[in-house]
């Protein structure tokens, strides 16, 4: 029988982390990885901690969380065929992540990656801010 622990996440703690996620990502050396095989995008710790679980935030975003509400990363399924389709301005980022030869300069590449990070953070913050239910189970 699967043992289930119901937990209530700390909304304030989550929102505070999202507000300072750029600093957290830099401190914890988050990496931006795209898996062309599964069309999944991960922006987060290179190795997720053992107690990490996925928490769905909205139609596109999931957070990698620990039970103490620490954010370990962001996870998007169907990144190219769905997320980028809704965020066409981020297409250069997809090309970079797919390791195709970019026509952009390195400065534009860094700018494109930063644009993706900002889009993800804004999306995550808005969705969490408007959410009422923070009960989950692991």
């Amino acid at each position: 029988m699967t043992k289930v622990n119901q937990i209530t996440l700390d909304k304030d703690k989550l929102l505070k982390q999202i507000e300072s996620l750029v600093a957290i990502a830099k401190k914890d050396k988050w990496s931006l990885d795209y898996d062309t095989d599964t069309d999944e995008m991960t922006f987060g710790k290179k190795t997720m901690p053992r107690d990490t679980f996925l928490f769905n935030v909205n139609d596109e975003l999931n957070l990698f969380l620990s039970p103490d509400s620490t954010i370990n990363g962001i996870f998007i399924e169907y990144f190219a065929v769905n997320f980028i389709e809704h965020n066409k301005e981020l297409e250069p980022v997809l090309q970079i992540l797919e390791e195709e030869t970019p026509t952009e300069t390195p400065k534009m590449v860094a700018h494109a990656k930063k644009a993706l990070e900002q889009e993800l953070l804004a999306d995550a913050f808005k969705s969490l801010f408007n959410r009422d239910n923070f009960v989950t189970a692991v």
Partner: protein
Amino acid sequence: MPETVAIALRCQNFQKRIVVFRKDSYDEHCLRHPELEDPTFFPPKVLQALKTPTFWVKAYKNDSICYYLELFAINGIMKYVKVVVSNKSQTINGERVYRIKTSFKTDHVQEQKYGNKLHYLGGTTL
């Protein structure tokens, strides 16, 4: 002589397909989905999702099939095992197999958001 590919999991699923999880792919996905290193999850729950899934659904705009096994439903909270398998067979170690692309625990069915039909064992389709 071609090199033997290390395999983390091999089984026959409910569709009589031989399904494999390459060791190199398994190791890579363990970094993002640490539940794959939990012996109560992998391989038993992944095997169960392949042999007796709660439902399966075509992936959105790609050639994969997603097998979902409901782990629990408590107070409206759902938790599933998701196993994504390529719908195109290939030859690995001289055998025609279907490759697991990834597997993880999730709390929702992403494909449902695109209107993809869920196929339940026993024939019910939603």
